[in-house]
């Protein structure tokens, strides 16, 4: 795809926030250039190209956000959801995608045959898929006064879980701790917030063992031995989710 801008040998370094990323998009416009890389702080050292620091300025971020908003939900969602991916290089992919959409209009999001568009689409899909999986597979435990769980997602899926669980459990307080990224989604008294956390305390209540034992009994009773097909099971529930699902754990010998 041709842009009204040339790819330049420069790396943008930003603070890793979404706002910061939007400022990178702004920079790329104002300089009429496409950077060769966009790097969050953790990757800053590895760049081959000269680096330019992009400061995060809320006013500029807001202008870009408003622009994305004007391009409609499919463009906006692809950028915001894609940004939740935990994947090196996502920023450049999304920046190139955003620029294309600003130049071509919202219909560019549907040009799935284009390399940038399909790469951005792949990011969005990976995040959404994982979000859906955790909606299905996470298991709450009663921990003190609220329900809680620890998950180990690849991407930052907490924002995708929020709406679903708030609707599912309207009167319940709960916390979902993303141990991979050290962030927790806390909902208490009808309010939601995200917190940085190292570990989750309190531990599950003792009665949880009984619930999990009941659930496991049910789970095993359901299996029809003559149809046993663990390959199919693993297709549907990839192994990496098993650590967060109590029924997949081997029985503790007593």
């Amino acid at each position: 795809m041709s842009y009204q801008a040339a790819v330049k040998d420069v790396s943008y370094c930003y603070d890793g926030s979404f706002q910061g990323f939007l400022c990178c998009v702004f920079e790329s416009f104002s300089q009429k250039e496409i950077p060769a890389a966009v790097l969050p702080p953790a990757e800053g050292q590895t760049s081959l190209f000269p680096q330019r620091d992009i400061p995060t300025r809320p006013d500029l971020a807001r202008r870009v956000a408003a622009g994305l908003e004007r391009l409609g939900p499919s463009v906006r969602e692809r950028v915001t959801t894609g940004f939740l991916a935990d994947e090196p290089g996502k920023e450049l992919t999304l920046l190139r995608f955003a620029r294309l959409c600003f130049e071509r209009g919202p219909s560019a999001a549907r040009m799935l045959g284009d390399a940038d568009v399909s790469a951005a689409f792949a990011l969005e899909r990976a995040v959404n898929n994982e979000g859906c999986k955790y909606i299905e597979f996470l298991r709450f435990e009663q921990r003190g006064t609220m329900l809680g769980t620890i998950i180990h997602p690849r991407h930052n899926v907490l924002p995708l879980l929020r709406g679903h669980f708030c609707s599912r459990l309207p009167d319940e307080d709960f916390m979902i701790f993303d141990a991979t990224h050290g962030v927790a989604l806390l909902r208490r008294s009808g309010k939601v917030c995200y917190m940085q956390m190292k570990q989750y305390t309190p531990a599950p209540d003792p009665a949880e063992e009984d619930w999990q034992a009941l659930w496991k009994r049910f789970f095993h009773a359901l299996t029809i031995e003559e149809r046993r097909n663990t390959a199919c099971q693993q297709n549907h529930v990839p192994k990496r989710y098993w650590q967060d699902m109590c029924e997949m754990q081997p029985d503790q010998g007593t």
Partner: protein
Amino acid sequence: MELMDKLEILADAAKYDAACTSSGLDRAGRPGTTGNTTFAGCCHTFSADGRCVSLLKVLMTNVCAYDCAYCVNRRSNDVPRAAFTPRELCELTMGFYRRNYIEGLFLSSAVLLDPDYTTERMVEALRLLREEYRFGGYIHAKAIPGADPQLVERLGLLADRLSVNIELPSETSLSRLAPDKHKAGILRPMGQIAQRTAQSRRELAVYRHAPAFAPAGQSTQMIIGATPETDLHILRLTEGLYRKYSLKRVFFSAYLPVVPDPRLPAVTAKPPLLREHRLYQADWLLRFYQFSAAEILNEEEPNFDPYLDPKCNWALRHPEFFPVEVNTATKAQLLRVPGIGPKSVQRILIARRQQHLGMDELKRIGVVLKRARYFITCNGKAPVRGTRAEVAAALLDPNAFGVGMRQLSLDDFLPTALPGAAPLVHQLADSGMDAREAARIARQEALTCLTKRL
């Protein structure tokens, strides 16, 4: 009896029911209640046989007054019996639901005393769950054939989905194997449910707070392989059921012999899982691909090919239909291309408005071309020219030759034919051949056969 043991008995007794979906209805959670439902449904886990677990699927009781030959719970079978109290059932449902184990409850029951008494107990449990426990998640309830229409009505006002099992594909088979059940007793509640759901939908359109009757519609299930009906017969019946009773789903359950009975396949017989799989594929063609039963099977070919999925089979019988030009074909035409599903069709339709599609573009869109490439052109050009043997190899359904590893001990693995493999693979493996070799031979044979056909 401990709750744990009851749960095990009543889940084990319910496991042969195929339906475990929580789909068909969007309902947001409201303050003061627990639970919502989502239109697409939600699978919370998958059991070791690869089936989705979405609902707490249990029987109210497995004590049964009837004696259906194909059923583990029949009166004359010697199995442990148990029954839930309505409260136990509610506690379990709520406890599981809050922990995100399940999407709701699938309540069925054996016939305790008679259909009315059984249904009353089910109604009582569901009423408690909805009214006292304020449960807003998914409920699928089974209507017991022969129950009073008023009880079915009450059941439908509490449940999201109702189902009446048609049990067997023909009336003859039904009266032979389930002497206590009658076709009319099954079809009457089906008709009632279809009519009430439609009526309630109309009322809801006018008046938002009208009571919803089974808003996620109804489904049914039949056992296949226990009786001699052909696949064509079953598929026609399925098509008829969709039309007449506006069913959401028809489920097929491969018969698994439980006890010796001269009227039924021998206990050593394997459940016809591949056939079940083919029926589901054909069912998808009916529901999402605009196929009719008569296009899929016919009197000359009344049963499915074990090695080809029904869509490939149709394509082979209709060479005049292909190739299809992806840049100009209609939706219906694209849907007929082997290997292209409704999702890919949607993406093609969207993407081709922006640009011409060649092979690279199709790949980027995520269209799987393994089979499709032999049936399409991109801008008038065929993507590949395959030899007949190559085409045949791409079309054969790998499921039919599935071999897995069974672990006998820590360092001893034995290849075994997967349950869904073709009958020939099972036969050869059962006669002592290495399963991988059996699969290879079966595949070779199918390949030769198919290559000739092309």
